[in-house]
């Protein structure tokens, strides 16, 4: 059987040797940080008019993470490309000839992608939090406030899981164009729209992005179906299901 450390090393070489890795991960960082910083600054400067007479407490953590909905696009694209470029180039047959144990190959890829995505997400989440808080001035919060540290880690886990979910879906569809065509509209149109439609939103509340984003909330919201930890577990379940589905398709299908 193929040695797992060898597969990890090989997958790491694959990931670091293409430019799309650097680009997509850099965009994840820049967009999440930039949009978050901008909204924190605007909120601080126009605090009273923004808040009006809202009764719910002000979520300084959430404000600094305003950019995550755009930043997640880039890390989803990273997950799709890292798996999908093997299919678009025909390289998958070279990979499988080198490592015929197909599940081992996909597992190695997922570990490498997950570790890299987690590292980048952690740096992104903490940088975004600290920059955002410094721009919120007197309205800012700190990591020592209740639930704030969990929310920052939650942001990193959220990005990592969406990346792996996308990688799994791409392995299932074995086509990167198709995967982008399915995932991007799903996360940017379908899921946000459906979660605003009465009745349908009950279903949309169990989608991976909605569930995962519960981890970012510091205060309990009115009408929220579940808390941050069930949200984490639901998102994790989607991620595992996508990867398992990808492994199943890879194992059964002619390459």
């Amino acid at each position, binding site marked *: *059987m*193929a*040695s797992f450390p*060898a*597969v990890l*090393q*090989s*997958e790491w*070489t*694959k990931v670091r*040797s*293409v*430019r*799309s890795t650097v680009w997509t991960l850099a965009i994840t960082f820049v967009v999440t940080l930039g949009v978050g910083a901008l909204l924190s600054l605007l909120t601080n400067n126009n605090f009273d008019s923004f808040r009006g007479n809202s009764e719910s407490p002000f979520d300084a953590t959430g404000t600094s993470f305003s950019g995550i909905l755009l930043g997640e696009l880039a890390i989803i694209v990273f997950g799709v490309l890292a798996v999908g*470029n*093997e299919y678009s*180039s*025909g*390289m998958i*047959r*070279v*990979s*499988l*000839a*080198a*490592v*015929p*144990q197909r599940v081992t190959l996909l597992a190695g890829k997922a570990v490498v992608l997950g570790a890299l995505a987690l590292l980048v997400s952690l740096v992104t989440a903490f940088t975004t939090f600290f920059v955002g808080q410094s721009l919120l001035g007197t309205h800012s919060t700190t990591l020592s406030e209740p639930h704030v540290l969990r929310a920052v880690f939650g942001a990193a886990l959220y990005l990592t899981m969406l990346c792996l979910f996308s990688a799994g879906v791409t392995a299932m569809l074995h086509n990167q164009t198709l995967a982008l065509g399915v995932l991007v509209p799903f996360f940017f149109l379908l899921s946000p729209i459906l979660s605003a439609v009465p009745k349908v939103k009950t279903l949309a509340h169990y989608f991976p992005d909605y569930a995962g984003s519960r981890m970012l909330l510091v205060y309990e919201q009115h009408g929220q179906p579940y808390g941050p930890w069930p949200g984490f577990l639901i998102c994790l379940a989607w991620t595992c299901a996508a990867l398992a589905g990808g492994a199943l398709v890879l194992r059964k299908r*002619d*390459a």
Partner: protein
Amino acid sequence: MIELHELTKRYGETLAVDNLSFQVPQGVVTGFLGPNGAGKSTTMRMILDLDRPTSGRVTVDGKRYGQLSEPLKYIGALLEAKAVHPGRTAYDHLLWLAQSNRIPRRRVDEVLSLVGLTSVARKRSRGFSLGMGQRLGIASALLGDPEILMFDEPVNGLDPEGILWIRNLMKGLAAEGRTVFVSSHLMSEMALTADHLVVIGKGRLLANLSMAEFIKQNSRSAVRIRTPHVEQLLTALATAGLRATATPDGAYEIEDGDLVHLGDLAAGHGITLHELSPQQASLEEAFMQMTADSVEYHAGNGEGRDAAGAWGATWQPKSSEQKGD
């Protein structure tokens, strides 16, 4: 050693590979011949466990491919020329392959220089020509220093220099005692490189024999004579007990004739000759006859043999078109 045992692959209604059994002999170049669509690539993908057989089995060194640990050390394959991420450098492509099978890094430099790509090793493969892509593919096949090499149509689309390079490479690999299994749809190409032949058509085994045997069975030699004194020549030949066949262009052919004997004979009778030349029926012709019944896509009138030389010969005006096939 590659062994196929009643290997069958069905795609829906189509039988791509039909009950194929043969062994690839060790230490020589084996040509895997068949017309396009005969099932050569499918067979090779099944050897590598990329496509799963519908029934039957195939083993490499007695094991199913999927059971080999670090398979690149047993068998190196080139299936497609450009199965490489266009944004990755040649070096990095070979490096990830080497790492997956715990092949030392210095071997990457070795194979790069072996195929002559050292100067472009750090360039992204996007800009590679077909020939360079083919060399990179061959470098990855050689990476694990395997005993068995498998190439799918390696000369397709190459320029004469590239073709010559691959031909010499294959011969060199076999001379080192390695097993080379190479597919082609060109008999003329195999005649120059292969020691052994496996011919398939429509997924079925048509022939499995040594090149020498194939030539012996299929080569037909004749002497071609052209003369202005036809009557005298035919009489002289008949007296000598030889039979001449007229060719459409007015010459005559004598099967298995001897050049010296025929020249002397003509001179003895004072017959002027305008041509006296040895003729060798091409192996290509023999191959095409062998596979004629199994050619998937016929040109024109449906006779595979005619497809090679007579493109357009069967063209007819639309009004008189009455073809059944």
